[in-house]
């Protein structure tokens, strides 16, 4: 992974010819989901008929609270098991029950809404943990430092470069627990890059981050795409979505209700319904409201 990589090396498909309907097909999907259902008792938390995620795009997953976005994320990343459904990741159909560690090794890495920094490990150790296939992570070689020292040195060099790119090199030897909320988000993102992912899934990367840091975080998300990765992120803030997303998928009550470019989505009547309450055009009820109750939602 070099810093000289340019966008030309990873041509992005234009969004114009893609049909803006739920479950529309994409020219080169890295992820394809079919008939995915997750039920909690009588509640269908996730019920996705068909979804394709285009390679090298930044796809935003939005929706009101309780729409099932995080559950959907958990299902895709192996932290939860669906009742039904298939996932095809980069051409391979995943088994129904798949472990998060296996997916991470296959190139699908995620971050968490509530940041999971390893608080009592230094920042640099957090970073080094991300690398796959470390000889020193096996029990017997671990005992003999010469067996893993050279790999460790190259991992450390790479981690230092990445920390510098995320402007966190001054925090290198601090415990991750001493970082601010925003810095932890940065660390988690940087750490996930150490796994050499093809698909990066960010669960609310901007939540609780101050505006100054938001810009830098957004820059890094765009940077992931420029390095050839595909990004899916969950977000509430439409401004953020407008700024960086190539494509937007909208969930409500567990289903995909709309797909499209950010501009198209912000004008979509179904989406406005979902955010403002689906039944606000129910005229029978409206007539019973007092005429002067204009501000009522």
């Amino acid at each position, binding site marked *: 992974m070099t810093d000289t990589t340019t966008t030309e090396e990873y041509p992005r498909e234009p969004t114009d010819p893609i049909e803006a309907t739920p479950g529309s097909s994409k020219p080169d999907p890295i992820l394809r989901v079919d008939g995915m259902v997750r039920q909690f008792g009588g509640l269908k938390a996730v019920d996705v008929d068909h979804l394709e995620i285009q390679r090298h795009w930044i796809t935003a997953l939005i929706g009101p609270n309780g729409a099932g976005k995080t559950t959907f994320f958990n299902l895709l990343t192996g932290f939860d098991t669906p009742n039904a459904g298939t996932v095809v990741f980069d051409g391979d159909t995943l088994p129904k029950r798949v472990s998060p*560690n296996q997916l991470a090794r296959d190139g699908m890495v995620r971050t968490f809404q509530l940041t999971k920094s390893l608080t*009592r490990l230094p920042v640099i150790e957090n970073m080094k943990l991300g690398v796959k296939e470390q000889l020193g992570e096996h029990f017997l070689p*671990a005992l003999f430092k010469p067996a893993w020292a050279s790999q460790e040195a190259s991992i450390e060099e790479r981690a230092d470069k990445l920390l510098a790119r995320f402007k966190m090199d001054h925090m290198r030897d601090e415990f991750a627990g001493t970082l601010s909320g925003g810095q932890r988000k940065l660390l988690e993102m940087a750490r996930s890059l150490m796994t050499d992912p093809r698909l990066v899934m960010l669960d609310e990367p901007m939540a609780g981050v101050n505006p100054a840091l938001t810009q830098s975080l957004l820059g890094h998300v765009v940077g992931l795409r420029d390095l050839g990765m595909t990004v899916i992120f969950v977000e509430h803030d439409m401004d953020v979505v407008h700024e960086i997303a190539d494509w937007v998928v909208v969930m409500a009550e567990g289903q995909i209700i709309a797909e499209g470019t950010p501009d198209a989505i912000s004008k979509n009547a179904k989406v406005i319904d979902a955010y403002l309450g689906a039944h606000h055009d129910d005229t029978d009820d409206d007539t019973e409201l007092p005429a002067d109750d204009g501000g009522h939602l």
Partner: protein
Amino acid sequence: MDWDIIFRNAIIAGFSREAAVYAIAAVGLNVHFGYTGLLNFGQVGFMAISAYGVGISITQYNAPVWLAFIIGLLAAVVLALLLGVPTLRLRSDYLAIVTIAASEIIRLTFRSVALTDWSGGSNGINGFADGYYRFSPFDPSQRYGFGNVQVFGNQAWIIVVGWTLAILVTVLVWLLMRSPWGRVLKSIREDEDAARALGKNAYFYKMQSLILGGMIGGLAGIVLSVGQQTVQPDAYSPPVTFFIWTALILGGVGRIWSPIFGSIAFWMILSLTNNLLDGLVNVGIVPSAVTAGVRGGSIRFVLVGLGLMLLMAFRPQGVFGDRNEMMLADR
């Protein structure tokens, strides 16, 4: 008061075979709790199963000493697998409950009347340690030591072997914990899901940790039974687990040398409070009614408990711990 005797007793207690046993067991517990975050409240169960593994294989099957020791340690591996397979996929508190129950099941099974012919019932297993003492370079009838701290030959042999093992397992754990393997364990301690999201098979690593710490605990049990020349079921009762926890916390959780230091300190403090109390009674400062009968033994644990509470209040990180680091755990 005779300060000479009080300090001599404290030194003998601090470097006794029991202290070595607790130090070794605490190293195992440190692997579990200090580095992996596994709550093991049944460390004494690993000690018991290994001690019985040695005792039974020698007395029932005439196994040579070296083979018996290997069988004892393998018994600890089997116990770790039995405990780990169903619980390590669950939250850490499940392991805590299962381990404390298992340690009692082991003790009560081995001391049961039905198995008397095999495991000796409540009398335990005797006369199996001769093969071990045959290797002793010390003369059992001679005294060894420094100044007025003297022990008999067999005692000296088990003390030397016990403390050598304590240092060896400490070095082993140090080698492991500075490696990327140790880094994975610590990451699981901090946040298991984060480790899994980065491709680490947390279950597999937790199992390795449980087995390693369990085997070290088993080693402690073997040293204890060989030192006492008997496997007594009631020497493996739950309070032992909690004394080992005490030693570990005293030294500082997740620190390399804290098990050894904590165990020495624990046994010295026990001896000091006991002897000081007796001394104070003798010179009339403390009324003799306080320590009369069985009370004396209880009072010293009351004092040790009080001391621990003060330690938790003023130095919760233990002697070697870092308070700032510890406080991060809750953030």
